[in-house]
């Protein structure tokens, strides 16, 4: 039948592209991560050797090397902590904003939503660069602090971990607000009134009614911020200093500076296993669970 041919064309064209240009590259990372390193080009040995009969030439040394050196584990832990702190601040700023946008009247709501998302459409790199201007020693923030008499000399605001957190919270905030808004928008405002009528005060209403109902939005928004931040390279590179090393920087240097391809691949593949896989599994389980409970 003609339909069958047509369906096959629709299913298999993207299938083919993604297997070739997404799945195979991931497989190659894994392959190189278990190859023996050597000096040369490419800087690793083949995993199948055919000189004296067939031999498989693999090693887990690259993983042992990474996981036994504090330089690598420490950077990964730094990235996880950075991602946790940034996600927390995005939530802290994003939640009240999303909540108040969702509870505005419909005209204002649409305008506010557009206003929140517009910065997200403008260039990521340039928004990070903007913070570099603001946090300079003679930048606008220092000028304000000096004029208010809060400090007597310019503070070193740039090139440290706080500047990195600032830059991340700024650039990732819309990613937190959007899913939060999506869930808060569906939520029946009468529930808040009802809980007030039943005698709950504001704080109790927040913790017993609003917060539990926005858990799916909080989860979605936090994931959208947390995962890319762990692998973030540009923001620490532009705003950060040498006080802290992060996973992205280590991976970059292992590949481009040390030219240790198996080591860099092992770092990347560990990142996939530790970070991406649990989240993919979690999302599948979570969507099944929420379907079952009809949330």
């Amino acid at each position: 039948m003609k339909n069958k041919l047509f369906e096959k064309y629709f299913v298999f064209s993207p299938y083919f592209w993604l297997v070739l240009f997404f799945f195979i590259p991931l497989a190659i990372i894994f392959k190189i991560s278990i190859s023996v390193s050597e000096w040369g080009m490419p800087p690793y040995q083949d995993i199948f050797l055919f000189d004296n009969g067939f031999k498989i030439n693999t090693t887990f040394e690259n993983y042992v090397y990474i996981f036994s050196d504090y330089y690598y584990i420490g950077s990964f832990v730094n990235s996880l902590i950075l991602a946790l702190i940034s996600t927390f601040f995005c939530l802290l700023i994003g939640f009240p904003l999303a909540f108040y946008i969702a509870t505005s009247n419909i005209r204002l709501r649409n305008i506010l939503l557009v206003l929140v998302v517009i910065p997200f459409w403008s260039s990521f790199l340039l928004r990070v660069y903007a913070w570099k201007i603001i946090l300079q020693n003679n930048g606008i923030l220092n000028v304000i602090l000096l004029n208010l008499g809060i400090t007597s000399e310019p503070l070193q605001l740039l090139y440290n971990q706080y500047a990195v957190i600032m830059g991340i919270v700024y650039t990732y905030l819309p990613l937190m607000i959007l899913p939060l808004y999506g869930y808060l928008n569906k939520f029946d405002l009468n529930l808040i009134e009802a809980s007030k009528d039943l005698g709950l005060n504001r704080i109790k209403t927040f913790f017993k009614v609003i917060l539990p109902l926005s858990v799916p939005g909080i989860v979605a928004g936090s994931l959208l911020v947390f995962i890319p931040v762990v692998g973030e390279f540009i923001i620490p590179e532009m705003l950060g200093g040498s006080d802290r090393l992060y996973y992205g920087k280590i991976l970059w240097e292992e590949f481009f500076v040390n030219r240790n391809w198996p080591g860099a691949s092992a770092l990347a593949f560990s990142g996939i296993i530790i970070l991406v896989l649990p989240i993919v599994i979690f999302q599948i389980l979570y969507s099944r669970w929420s379907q079952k409970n009809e949330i």
Partner: protein
Amino acid sequence: MKSSLIKSIVIFLGLFFLYFPILVLIFYSFNENKRVMVWKGFSLRWYNELFNNEQIIEAFIISIKIAALSATFATILGVMIGYSLVRIRKIPFKSFYIFLSSTPLVLPELILGLSMLLFFISLNNVIGFPSSRGQLTIFISHVTFCIAFVAIIIQARLTDFNKNIEEAAMDLGYNYTKVLYKITLPIILPSIIAGWLLAFTISLDDLVVASFTTGPGANTLPIVVFSKVRLGLSPEVNALSAILMFALIIIGLFYFYLNKKFKH
């Protein structure tokens, strides 16, 4: 009322936080002084220098070219995935298909970039192609990670819209292909354009994946900008920011308009 005052303050502070850095950037782009932070007077000098900077202009043209081409390919393939996931029941290894089409959304760009680079090098060792990396390899990488964004938009829209229209057309004698081209695609057209715009801006904005897969003669705009501002400030980049912010914001507004148009 007290609570509405709190609400206004929260919204005002939130928007101030989002727009203040952008306004600072635009403000300093009009500074006459070569030293970015020291204000000397209003001037369009850096806009003039920007338009005479061949390196930036060339990078801009390369970026637009790659973004337009990869957005087009990603949209075609993304629409196919979105359609397949919602309307076609028999997909071999469906969970693998879902895995392939959604993982690029959550994979850190750095890992994606490294995997693409190692793939191109290995491919070159095996079949002798691509002999060097450049615009083609950036294009392929951008298509690969933009597909997922388009697919998710199309999937959401197709799930929303009523299947009865398609079935009615089928009852009236339209065949499968005709229904697709005369009914389904025209109805989801705003979403297709919205998906294209999203893919276009993602490609235009990408620095990490492009840095891994670039080669001689393929310096995209973010790569050039990054090399200029990595260690310091650049008055030309300030002028560029102001223009780019403005252009991208217009694309963003158009995206919103298309999304809204579909809902009504």
